[in-house]
């Protein structure tokens, strides 16, 4: 009798089935709204492209030790490096060597791991804390709402990268500092988003009807308002992933990542090459393209999620 709760977590109301004339007929169109959203995503070519890129990226990150031809820290080919010549792509090293004589392809493959971990963790942390704050404001309203929203306004008034830089400067050079630095500017975005959509949902009749039935306030918010306010969060999260990956690369490009020079991270790899740009342009191209393709994949997929969940764009 019950359908799975999970399957319906991303539903939005479907204005399509307004067939009031078929009242005598039993029950119409037994497809769930979540499945409808999934179907829309599958049908969208952008989503298929974006999804494939993301899947490829995740597989590369997961199976890096199997895929990489060499150890990314191995400097065995150091003797081939000259001030005026860093070997480019060859059959032995498809992406060439880097300035320290390491295999560039292996480093790109391992770099996917760092980007995935940093991107996903920072987004999850930012979205989670943001959602908690937004929930607080949306659930209580009144002065709690005003206070929380003024604080997020202050956070929003500081440019994201500047905020991230200051945070990284305080915490010091490490992978954790990048994660925190990327996560924090996300907090006010998610807080505002959830609060706004909760305020919108609260005005709807089904909330008034639950209230008139005598539902307690906590269950009113947690059972009715909150689950119905999550769709915009989901869209924002899938779009913010690409920004998180770019921001993380930017921060490590600026030298805020791990102090260990052996760590393979795309942004860091770009920094290392700036000095050799003329001698070895491949060292800038490969990590740059890797960042671009991954970010593009998440962006395309995020757009598709937004289109699938936006009732105004339903065809």
């Amino acid at each position, binding site marked *: 009798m019950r359908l799975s709760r999970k399957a319906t977590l991303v*539903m939005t109301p479907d204005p399509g089935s*307004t067939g*009031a*004339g078929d009242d005598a007929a039993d*029950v119409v169109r037994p497809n769930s*709204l979540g499945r409808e959203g999934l179907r829309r995503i599958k049908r969208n070519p952008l989503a298929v492209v974006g999804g494939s890129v993301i899947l490829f990226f995740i597989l590369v990150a997961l199976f890096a030790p199997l895929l990489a031809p060499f150890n990314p820290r191995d400097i065995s080919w150091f003797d081939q490096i000259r001030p005026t010549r860093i070997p480019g792509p060859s059959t032995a090293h498809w992406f060439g060597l880097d300035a320290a004589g390491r295999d560039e392809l292996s480093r790109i493959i391992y770099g996917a791991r760092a980007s995935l971990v940093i991107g996903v963790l920072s987004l999850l942390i930012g979205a989670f804390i943001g959602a908690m704050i937004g929930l607080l404001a949306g659930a209580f309203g009144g002065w709690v709402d005003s206070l929380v929203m003024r604080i997020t306004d202050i956070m929003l008034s500081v440019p994201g990268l500047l905020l991230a830089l200051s945070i990284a400067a305080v915490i010091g050079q490490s992978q954790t500092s990048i994660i925190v630095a990327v996560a924090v500017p996300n907090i006010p975005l998610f807080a505002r988003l959830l609060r706004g959509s909760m305020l919108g949902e609260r005005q709807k009749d*089904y909330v008034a009807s639950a209230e008139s039935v*005598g539902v307690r306030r906590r269950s009113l918010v947690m059972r009715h308002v909150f689950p*119905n306010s999550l769709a915009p969060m989901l869209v924002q999260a899938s779009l913010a992933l690409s920004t998180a990956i770019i921001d993380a690369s930017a921060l490590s490009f600026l030298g805020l990542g791990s102090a260990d020079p052996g760590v393979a991270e795309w942004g860091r790899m770009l920094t290392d090459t700036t000095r050799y740009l003329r001698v070895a342009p491949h060292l800038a191209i490969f990590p740059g393209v890797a960042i671009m393709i991954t970010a593009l994949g998440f962006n395309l997929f995020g757009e598709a999620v937004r289109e699938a969940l936006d009732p105004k764009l339903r065809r």
Partner: protein
Amino acid sequence: MLTVRDLKVHFPITKGVFFDRVVGAVRAVDGVDLTIPDGATLGLVGESGCGKSTVGKAILRLVPLTSGTVRFDDVELSALHGEALRTARRKVQMIFQDPYASLDPRQNVESILAEPIRTHALRKGAAIDTRVVELLDSVGLPRTAAGRYPHEFSGGQRQRIGIARALAAEPSLIIADEPVSALDVSIQAQVVNLLADLQEQLDLTYLFISHDLAIVRHIADDVAVMYLGGIVETTSAELLYTRPLHPYTLALLSAVPIPDPIVEDTRRRTVLEGDLPSPANPPSGCRFHTRCVYVRDRCVTERPELREVEPGHMAACHFAEEIAVSISPRPAVDQRP
């Protein structure tokens, strides 16, 4: 018995960047008295924006009351807060206008119907499932509907789910806020008749809010006509439709089409000029004087009280007696099939 006395609901209009400053109020409901005896149906009619829905919501305390009292049986709803209010609400339930907005899209029918039962601990364990099936039966929905979600149903079916939810709390009074106006005409009759059957079976009292005069005549025992936050006329359904005393009621009735081309072409019509004035800045004196065809000087300065013009017939017009004399008995308004 529901008694509403001098109910006022004013929504503040605020201005200001940092601190809200109250600069005025929308007088959505401005001094309404209603009485509904047990088992009866009161129809509350009026055009959109006149505050009739707000009256319904105010009775359930879904909007804050500015002043006035709402008493149901021995409980003064308007004096309750918190847990006491939550428990007291069980006796008074509401059916909402828009069946597409009034059901949580993420809850299946079973959990929509079980919620009032659980929250008031009316049944326990397996008895809840039995009760859900019973409720579905009583509104004529198949038992298989329990596992489905609101979007899988048509408008009429959804409205019946809304009715079943209201019944789940085992109320004595049901406030039906335009329960059929969002539905197809062909479905309206089904739902209205279902409401009438349920009233008989369960001994319910109804406050039936609507702008559809024909449907109100069909279901209501008494009718109250509302204009700009106040009641302008109230009497039995029979008297109101045959012998209206307030100029506003006259105008409303003359807008109801009559399915007889000869009567329709020859009858005298009172056409209302202009729009409903803003309840934030209501006209002086009689609220209706800006649109009334019988307007005189007195109407501009003095607000008429709702008074008993004839036995069992209240109207808020200074000249109700003259109107009673000048208007011949009107042709009956048709009932919808």
